[in-house]
């Protein structure tokens, strides 16, 4: 799987409230509506300008806070192809895998890439390419790679239960 897009760069501890505000968690459920509120309290321009395949680059502890899965879903619905961070908050990382959104840990990428850079990610080879350099990242833990490859936890579970 290859992902190509522009970089949107943010800082440390980007929390789930600024990614998808709590006040919407029971009232905004339509996919395109959710996409319109993505990163609303962090970067009001984002939802309007994001393009399919764009990549979010964050700092430490990306996605800290609530367990709300919409904080992953809204980015997927907005077209985000992957998130690269120095580290991910625990539940957010699980939600990414379970939603089939690549969550890549690469401090080098975070240190080097800037907003607007074009990146190409090769998930199988574990490589991020950009004009500023080529960076390798570690693969997902073997125990969860199957979930990701199936497209997320629900298709994975359906497959395991023989329902696909």
């Amino acid at each position, binding site marked *: 799987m290859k992902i190509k897009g522009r970089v949107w760069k943010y800082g440390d*501890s980007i*929390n789930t*409230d*600024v990614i998808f*505000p*709590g*006040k919407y*968690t*029971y*009232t905004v*459920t339509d996919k395109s509506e959710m996409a319109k509120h993505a990163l*609303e*309290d*962090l970067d009001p321009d984002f939802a309007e300008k994001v393009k399919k395949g764009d990549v979010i680059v964050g700092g*430490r*502890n990306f996605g*800290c*806070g*609530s*367990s*709300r*899965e919409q904080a992953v879903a809204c980015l997927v619905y907005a077209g985000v192809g992957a998130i690269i961070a120095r*580290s991910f*908050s*625990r*539940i957010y990382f*699980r*939600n990414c895998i*379970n*939603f089939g959104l690549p969550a890549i840990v690469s401090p080098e990428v975070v240190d080097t890439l800037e907003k607007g850079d074009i990146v190409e990610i090769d998930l199988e080879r574990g490589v991020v390419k950009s004009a500023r350099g080529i960076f390798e990242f570690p693969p997902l*833990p073997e*125990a*969860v790679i199957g*979930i990701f490859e199936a497209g*997320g*936890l*629900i298709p994975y*579970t*359906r497959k*395991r*239960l023989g*329902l696909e």
Partner: protein
Amino acid sequence: MGETFAEKIFSRKAGRKVKAGEFVEVEPDVAMSHDNTAAISKTFLSIGVDKVHNPDRHVVILDHCVPPADEKFARNHKEIREFVRKFGIKNFYDINTGICHQVMHEKGHVWPGALIVGSDSHTTSYGAFGAFSTGIGRSEMAVIMATGKMWFRVPETIRVHVEGEFPDFVGPKDLMLKIAGEIGADGALYKAVEYCGPTIEKMGVAGRFVLANMSVEIGAKAGYMIPNDEVLEYIRRRVKRDFEVIKSDEDAEFEKEYKFDVSDLSPMVARPHTVDNVVPIGEVKGTKVDMVFFGSCTNARLEDFEEAVKVLGKRKFSPNVRVIIIPASMEIYKGLLKRGILEKFIDAGAVVLNPGCGPCMGNHEGVPADGEIVISTSNRNFKGRMGNRNSEIYLASPQTCVASGIYGEIVDVRELS
């Protein structure tokens, strides 16, 4: 080499000896969900199974917007009631019960040694009772409904050793904020945190709960304490089953150990907009406040109100401040009524609302206006958390919040005569 609490819990569940870093697929003892159960039920139905795997494992508690603020929340609750009825989930608590994390132990769904998951980040709370408990996502809860199982990585453990006696007007919330400030919002990322030492051994249920509840604010997968006699007595009054207290071995491998001494701890405050942006009270003293929120799963228990009402005395709240009080559960609400505590707060000018999450994540019941400053007993001060990105939230103890409500600005509760 001995085993940590986390390793023992997952070894038992997996039926083999596992070490930190291993992945396991296990059956949790209890699985809690709240208002998000409607969304979970739709994901569950999309899997294509026709019954819930062990409906008695599940506990569903309505708390995030109770009673519903509009027709969307009302429809959400209605769907949940229909779902639990149809699929035989008997452990269902409607809008008249309280905040999920309080109701869970009040109603006997938490016991030492249990493995508990919840589709809510503050599920770490039940470590206060010696359970291993952690937050998961909605899809994961749907899969547990379908299969009974979930994958976990066995976490490494960090020890937080606490000693000393709390000074007057300083307590567990100040300690937890101090810990968050020192360790940082990702200081315990993916780890289990074990709180120990003489201060913890003496700490009661309400104080322990603050530490376990806010462990997620330092990134932890779980926060845990060995239950003391007070905790065990509390649990035995509510749980009808046998259980075993599980403890880390002394020669277990701990990744790190932090030490804190609370003897000279000040009241602590987390400034906007992160929980680890913590300073001693002196640095924020004098900051004007427009609203006090005394509620949430973190700090709205009987003991919190009992301590805070001592600070209040016969004083009134500032006419420039709205004080919103939301007891964490109906059981607590009744306890406060009986003791005459609610009346004192009402006479002082507070608004008392029904148990639930209230304005904590901005759904209703006290969303701040643009430019307003809130001081809150809750656990998160992220931008927009209470429903308005143009407001600011400070986090503090119940005593500090009540004292600040009296003066209309952040004050050092120790200086009140």
